[in-house]
């Protein structure tokens, strides 16, 4: 099953490009011209995203480097451990929505310290894989189209993250317990 998914994901991109180009060619679309026409927008999108991404990364960088994040971690350690999240992975749970590279660093540390096949290693892997970097995704997706008011999307995203972590703890205890 896993091999099949793996195989599929290796084939996916070349196959999709092939199918789209063949279909377009049959319909007499000028494939080369249209492709370059569309691709030219790529840089404009990147330029548009930059300020939003910068704003987000800067705030997170200040919050982490100042030690403010550690204070929040200490405050939240107790309530989160009551919810059943082991204390080793609590920093991961809190940094996961903020920083993709930051959380990947923590997972790497945990895996090196406890081993990839330990309970903590498996749980950290599951947590890292099961949600995305909420603030990054929001900055990039909404930044690209100039959305300034994200309404309740961030809150819903964070609730989803929390649910993902609790689900990860639950399923890992059940499967690897």
């Amino acid at each position, binding site marked *: 099953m896993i091999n099949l998914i793996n195989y599929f994901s290796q084939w996916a991109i070349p196959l999709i490009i092939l199918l789209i180009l063949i279909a377009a060619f049959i319909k007499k679309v000028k494939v080369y011209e249209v492709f370059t026409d*569309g691709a030219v927008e790529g840089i404009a999108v990147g330029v548009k995203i930059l300020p939003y991404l910068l704003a987000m990364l800067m705030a997170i960088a200040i919050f982490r480097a100042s030690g403010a994040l550690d204070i929040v971690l200490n405050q939240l350690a107790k309530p989160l451990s009551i919810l059943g999240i082991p204390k080793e992975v609590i920093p991961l749970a809190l940094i996961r929505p903020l920083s993709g590279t930051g959380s990947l660093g923590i997972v790497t540390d945990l895996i090196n310290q406890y081993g990839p096949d330990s309970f903590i290693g498996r749980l950290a892997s599951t947590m890292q894989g099961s949600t995305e970097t909420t603030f990054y995704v929001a900055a990039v997706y909404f930044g690209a189209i100039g959305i300034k008011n994200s309404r309740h999307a961030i809150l819903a*995203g964070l*609730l989803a993250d929390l649910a993902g972590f609790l689900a990860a703890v639950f399923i890992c205890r059940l499967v690897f317990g």
Partner: protein
Amino acid sequence: MLNKIWFTMIIIGIIIAAINGRMEEVSIAILESAEDSVMIVVKLIGPMALWLGIMKVAEEARLTDVLAKLFKPLAKILFPEVPKNHPALASIMMNLSANFLGLGNSATPLGIKAMQQLQELNSGKSSASDAMCTFLVINTSSVTLLPTTILALRIGAGSAQPTEIIGTTVFATFCSTVVGIVANKILIKISGLRGV
């Protein structure tokens, strides 16, 4: 909401840095974050251009109509206000497929394309539409069958069974996505009642 979060994080960060005597670290981190943001954007521009080009070809060939039609049953539930067979639905479907397969580098450009098309329906406002919020939450909660980065990390760390976490990951990501979608729908209802 972001206005407040952003402001609070910076102010609290700098005050605590002053108390902790970590101003130098903060100063370095600020400039590093500026460099990092450019690096991320530079890395994104290539795949972005690639997929915008491919999607344009798909649109011209009217393939996006076919995709939008395939996506219709699920789209009706998740994005009720998006007109059926709208090209945004095709991009959303492509983005979700790329996410499923763990192709993050392709999922992001396709997601941005979808957001652009949703923004056309939103008549260019600076406030996110309901559909945008739903789509964002689906992406922030991650929908994947193949967590590629973490698999690579586990293989690198010499795991005896690097793939054993796929089942647990799919379960956790499914829970987080469902909770995200439901929370989003409830929050939309509440803000609708308040007339926001």
